[in-house]
């Protein structure tokens, strides 16, 4: 069945470095992707989204890249800060459902001061 997974379960970076979090998805019919940030004990917070008709989208300090050929999604965080420490989830939607988000398992990002 459809699945969204992450290559790296944990990522540790130094403050000020750039971070790259990767995600693979298996449903080629997915047409909408979202990155969420979840801090301990809190609900997921929307970071950025991208539709399948785009391959790159930029936000404040974040960039999402979508490679439909290899079904790969990445989140780049520039100048990573301690406040960026959290679990990051990718989620996909589509393939016949406009309501169901399928989430990956998450990557724990730790920023060292």
């Amino acid at each position, binding site marked *: 069945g459809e699945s969204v997974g992450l290559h790296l379960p944990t990522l540790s970076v130094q403050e000020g470095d750039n971070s790259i979090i990767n995600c693979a998805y298996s449903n080629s019919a997915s*047409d*909408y992707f*979202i990155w*969420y940030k979840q801090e301990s*004990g*809190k*609900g*997921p*917070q*929307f970071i950025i*989204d991208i539709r399948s008709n785009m391959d790159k989208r930029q936000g404040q300090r974040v960039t999402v890249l979508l490679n439909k050929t290899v079904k790969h999604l990445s989140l780049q965080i520039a100048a990573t800060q301690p406040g960026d420490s959290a679990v990051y*989830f990718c*989620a996909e*939607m*589509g393939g016949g459902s*406009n*309501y*169901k*988000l399928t*989430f*990956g*398992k*998450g990557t724990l990002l730790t920023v060292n001061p």
Partner: protein
Amino acid sequence: SQTIHQWPATLVQPVGSPLSLECTVEGTSNPNLYWYRQAAGRGLQLLFYSVGIGQISSEVPQNLSASRPQDRQFILSSKKLLLSDSGFYLCAWSVGGPRGGGKTQYFGPGTRLLVL
């Protein structure tokens, strides 16, 4: 701006007891509403979603049920809790209406449920 509330924030319940978790959304009309469960260290699993009052779609068959008595109120219930019902329950909303599909979902603060 839109806000989403969940309560209680934490709950400890014995096995076999009933459950009622509430979610309300402010600042929007006719939202799509969702209930998710998150096991420790895991991703989110969609349990129910609703596109309107009284309209509930179930994604996972289990001893939980959902109801939407009002436009911006979504309730998750159980008649008898199981140990496996422990987890972090998250409510979410997205823009509704005829073109409400395929939209960003925004999450509430969650309810941590421990069944003993």
